[in-house]
């Protein structure tokens, strides 16, 4: 039996709408299978993973904390991916944003002003954008492969942070712990509803960014330019759009959002710089972007799903004794199923029995 693709006359609206759900469902089935193989009760484990975290208020707050960086980064990535720029170094831009954003509270810890926090956020975004500018300029100027350069810079950024918190920025009061001094209270991102949980302004930034980028992509000329360049650079050039400018624009925007996510995470959930500040948000955001069908509003929902998988992983480790390493396996499977299901938007799948088409086999003989 062979699988054959038949191109649809037009994009299937139905599958465009249901493919992320289908993918999620398939991931759940595969997960159930996985847990059964591991010798755990699949229903109970999936319940702990994907339902239990939603039943308590404090854990909804945690969900918002984890979703915020994912959404912020993925929204920026959607602009990159739509314009055919493969920025996979968001993890590095996140890290640099956290570092540049931390400069003010670390060097001027006495400066208590309402301006501190906004300045930190701006500097974080600028830092992320500047770091993303490296692969962007290299691509625009020299046609250097941005996938590889942006990824290499992730390792460089992480090593730089490691050096900072073990070297010049190390907190002398923290004994031998490699970490920077805690931020002063006015440099901490405020919590939204302190009475019920830890969720901070990060999630608000994420939603605002998603709506703004949605508007940019759907309602402005710039958004049109991004999509045209992505689908056909040649047509874009005929239309007077500059490929190089689009590369720079997409990278700067996504770098700035990743940097903002970085400083928000450090000044919100963590409160200081330490050697590891992200459980792979920059990479999980790639999955979020695709699960959200590269649509900023869809990305909000997708970000919540991925955030749930992080929370569920922690919960399942405690309650069922499943290793939290299953989280990343889950996330990887999800992206696989999303990509596979997206095929259904453009193609119908037909199963062909190979035995009944001997004519085809003969025609290969003339090679």
């Amino acid at each position, binding site marked *: 039996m062979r*699988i054959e693709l038949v191109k649809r006359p037009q994009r299937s609206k139905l599958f465009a709408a249901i493919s992320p759900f289908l993918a999620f469902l398939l991931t759940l089935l595969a997960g159930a299978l996985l847990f059964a193989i591991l010798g755990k009760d699949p229903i109970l484990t999936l319940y702990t993973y994907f339902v239990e975290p939603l039943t308590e208020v404090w854990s909804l707050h945690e969900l918002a904390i984890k979703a915020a960086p994912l959404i912020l980064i993925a929204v920026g990535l959607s602009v990159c991916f739509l314009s055919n720029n493969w920025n996979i170094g968001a993890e590095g831009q996140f890290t640099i944003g956290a570092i540049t954003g931390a400069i003010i509270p670390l060097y001027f810890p006495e400066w208590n002003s309402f301006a501190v926090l906004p300045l930190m956020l701006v500097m974080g975004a600028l830092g992320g954008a500047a770091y993303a500018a490296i692969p962007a300029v290299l691509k625009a100027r020299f046609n250097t492969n941005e996938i590889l350069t942006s990824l*290499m810079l992730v390792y460089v950024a992480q090593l730089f942070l490691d050096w900072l918190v073990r070297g010049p920025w190390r907190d002398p009061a923290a004994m031998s712990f490699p970490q920077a001094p805690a931020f002063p209270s006015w440099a901490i991102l405020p919590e939204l509803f302190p009475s019920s949980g830890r969720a901070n302004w990060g999630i608000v930034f994420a939603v605002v960014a998603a709506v703004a980028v949605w508007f940019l992509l759907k309602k402005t000329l710039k958004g049109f330019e991004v999509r045209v360049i992505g689908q056909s650079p040649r047509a874009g050039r005929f239309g007077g759009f500059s490929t190089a400018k689009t590369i720079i624009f997409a990278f700067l925007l996504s770098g700035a959002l990743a940097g903002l996510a970085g400083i928000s995470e450090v000044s919100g959930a963590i409160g200081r710089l330490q050697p590891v500040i992200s459980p792979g948000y920059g990479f999980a955001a790639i999955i979020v972007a695709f699960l959200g069908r590269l649509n900023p509003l869809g990305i909000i929902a997708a970000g919540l799903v991925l955030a749930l998988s992080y929370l569920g992983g922690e919960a399942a480790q405690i309650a069922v004794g499943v290793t939290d390493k*299953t*989280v990343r396996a889950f996330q990887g499977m999800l992206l696989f199923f999303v*990509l*596979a299901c997206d095929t259904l938007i453009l193609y119908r799948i037909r199963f062909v029995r190979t035995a009944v088409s001997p004519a085809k086999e003969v025609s290969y003989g003339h090679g």
Partner: protein
Amino acid sequence: MGMAEAILLTIATAATPLLLAAIGELVVERSGVLNLGVEGMMLMGAVAGFGAALTTGSAWVGVFAGIITGALFSLLFAFLVLTLVTNQVATGLALTLLGIGVSGMIGEAFVGQPGVKLTNIHIPGLSDLPYVGRLLFGQDPLFYISVLLTVGVAWFLFRTRAGLTLRSVGDSHSSAHALGIRVIAIRYAAIAFGGACAGLAGAHLSLVYTTQWIENMTAGRGWIALALVVFASWRPLRVFVGAYLFGAISILQLHIQAMNLADLAFLPGPLYWLLAQLKSLPSQFLSALPYLATVAVLVLISRNRRLTIMNTPASLGQPFVPDR
């Protein structure tokens, strides 16, 4: 054994996994497919190799487990990009993310366990020759396999009819299809070969390079292998040169971190000065060197746009749906 010989031996050990993974990816890209999942396939090979060697006690079983796992894992990617015509960049990333996740999950039981080492070969007499004995006749078996593989792939691609067919598929899948060449079948085979090589490279890491399992132990080597293919402008013998160059960079930074400057007073002045400067840098900067070198090399290569366009397989990364 002199210090120079010892350094050369460690360079070969560091270069072998890069070479194995890059040679496999080169064949995949020559067939017109970009598989960004090298890092994930290497991790799967490393964890499978380690686990199989640990349970059976035989490092060779581990090597074969690594190869098979890498190939099977790559077929997931092949099914998506070839049969379901998904985006190759996104699917490759998915393969890497899945590989990181699944290998971490499987490998959790192996963390901290002492592994099985693939022993170096020893030919009495030859291996004990001064200077070149260990280098030529006393390394681990995978070193020899990697060299043979490089020569074999070069011969296959440029001296055989099947190699010509594979390259034609990579340069113009529509023309190849029109000539009756089975584009999809050839690409399945190429991807599986690339997966087997990446799996073998991973097994090298967990059975030769360090005989233990560490989560994410490839540390970007899969990505460096991808960069090497570009650096080599899709030529096997240049991949060999590139792999040893990067092996040298990663080993030298380790040696610089560990060395004692007083032992090196015999070196000529400028070289001594350079090493002293490098040694005064924090270790993190030295660890970043291979990654920075990769960026630098990619820029140098891509600056010559004509050369890049001339050498890149023309159908690389393009989706292909046969019109029947």
